[in-house]
């Protein structure tokens, strides 16, 4: 075979031409698929992955879409995404408002996973981070309206750690307390039982991916009172501290506040439960003066 014969030259041309054709055609398909892959990493906020799931970008590379976790879930919580779902096809997810995670102690879904998509190092379900519950609507939450619904708090499997009821004065009635469900993200597993059982038409508390639910302090940021606790005393000479003028909202009254404009200082009353530990005054109706 002499490579310089015209025939083999033509054959080589044909080969190069065919290869270029293939590379372009398949390249376009690949480009489309690649962009689709990028899109598929954007998991909808209300689709939650099983316990121990890797971060979404890793999950889609590790999960082989076998559905073993779905099969071993005793509560039929998990489902595999169908092609029309906004979740990468064939991957497991659950919707808390439909069926939340029941937080099995033996975590069968993780055990069933033949890959590392569900991290087998997760052996304590209380350490799961499927998401973080957020009391997202303060306008409709019954407890924020001053009622004692408390359902999300009662059903929380990590009650009094993941969700607490924080007592606040009800300024609308002036004589009651509001018990505000408050999520503590370090204890919340994102199981979704609170979202499932919220009595509203649309849940006021929802489990969101941590990256949507959580803010992040600047890493240089230090909280003064914690530093003070650690050091066992103030880090600065408090006698030299300047009290800069600050302004309260129109009409607001804060006990002990010095108003630089009028030179007037409000009388101290102290607030219940404050760290300052001042004895609280009685609220009106309980013997206190309005």
């Amino acid at each position, binding site marked *: 075979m002499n490579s310089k014969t015209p025939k083999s030259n033509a054959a080589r041309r044909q080969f190069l031409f065919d290869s270029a054709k293939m590379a372009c055609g398949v390249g376009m398909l*690949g480009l489309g698929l*690649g962009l689709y*892959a990028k899109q598929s990493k954007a998991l909808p906020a209300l689709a939650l992955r099983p316990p121990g799931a890797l971060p979404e970008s890793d999950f889609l590379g590790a999960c082989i879409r076998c559905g073993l976790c779905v099969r071993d879930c005793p509560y039929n919580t998990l489902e595999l995404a169908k092609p029309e*779902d906004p979740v990468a096809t064939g991957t497991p997810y659950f919707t808390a408002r439909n069926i939340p995670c029941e937080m099995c102690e033996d975590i069968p879904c993780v055990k069933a996973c033949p*890959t590392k998509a569900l991290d087998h190092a997760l052996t304590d379900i209380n350490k799961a981070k499927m998401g973080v519950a957020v009391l997202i609507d303060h306008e409709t939450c019954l407890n924020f309206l001053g009622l004692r619904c408390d359902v999300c708090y009662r059903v929380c499997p990590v009650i009094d750690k993941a969700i607490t009821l924080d007592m606040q004065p009800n300024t609308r009635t002036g004589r009651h307390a509001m018990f505000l469900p408050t999520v503590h993200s370090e204890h919340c597993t994102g199981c979704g039982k609170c979202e499932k059982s919220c009595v509203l038409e649309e849940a006021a508390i929802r489990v969101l991916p941590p990256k949507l639910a959580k803010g992040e302090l600047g890493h240089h940021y230090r909280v003064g009172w914690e530093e003070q606790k650690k050091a066992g005393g103030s880090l600065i000479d408090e006698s030299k501290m300047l009290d800069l003028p600050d302004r309260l909202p129109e009409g607001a009254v804060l006990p002990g506040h010095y108003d630089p404009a009028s030179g007037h200082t409000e009388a101290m009353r102290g607030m219940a439960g404050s760290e300052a530990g001042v004895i609280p005054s009685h609220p009106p109706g309980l013997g206190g003066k309005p």
Partner: protein
Amino acid sequence: MSQIANKKRIGAEAVEEKGWLGAHKWLLLRRISQLSILGLFLIGPLAGIWVVKGNLNYSHTLGVLPLTDPYVALQSLLAGHVPETLGLVGVAIVLVFYFLVGGRVYCSWVCPINMVTDAAGWLRDRLGIKGASSLSAKTRYWILGMTFIGSAVTGVVLWELINPVSMLHRGLIFGVGATWMVVLAIFLFDLFVMSRGWCGRLCPVGAFYSLLGRWSPLRISANKRSACNDCMDCFEVCPEPQVIRPALKGEGKGVGPVILAPNCTNCGRCIDVCSKDVFTYGLRFNNPVSTEKAGA
């Protein structure tokens, strides 16, 4: 349309010679294999009898036998993730099995899409739809390569985003959803756009398994090729007709009768439709250059 009436059905001679059952033996066995595998997966969710859990990507049989699709596992590996031990054992078992029996046995004896494309091929033949296919049978290897590179670049098991094979199998077991549209699209593509278009030209799963069975011992052999009467039925019925010629017509060229082309799916349809019993299952090692005696 008169063409349909005049055209002799593929395998008509074989039916006359061997009877309908004899001329459809391997086809029936293949359908039984495909349907019973599907059935094993289905009696769990349907009847609560859990023999196999999972789907073709990974399954766990009777709590002891793990089976992993090596193509999916390889994409995952390229995306930067190593399966757990059980997943790896499953890969090894599947690799060894298809290395021995022929990679594309997966296509013809297991894959659920095969029944769809076979149906399209059959209907295409019955309706007499002609038309040259413009896509090379090598396209699938380009797509295969693309999925490997793509998985590495995106960090996603790329082909699983759209793989109709796992989509259909998963859909049947876990809930169909819009999967039927994808399956219908493939059926119509094979029926009207391109003969054997999906399995024979595009599907990278088949391409992967063809490479896996590149040196598999179990092969189809045309060891009575001298009895061939050139009826062309085997070429007509074969899903990968290009694999037959070298073996069947190689007598004068010093080529043995074993079909060595890796894209032969070992489906056995050529055995069925041949009225002269030219073809048989055999081993690749039993490949004498001359088969005059065997055929005599």
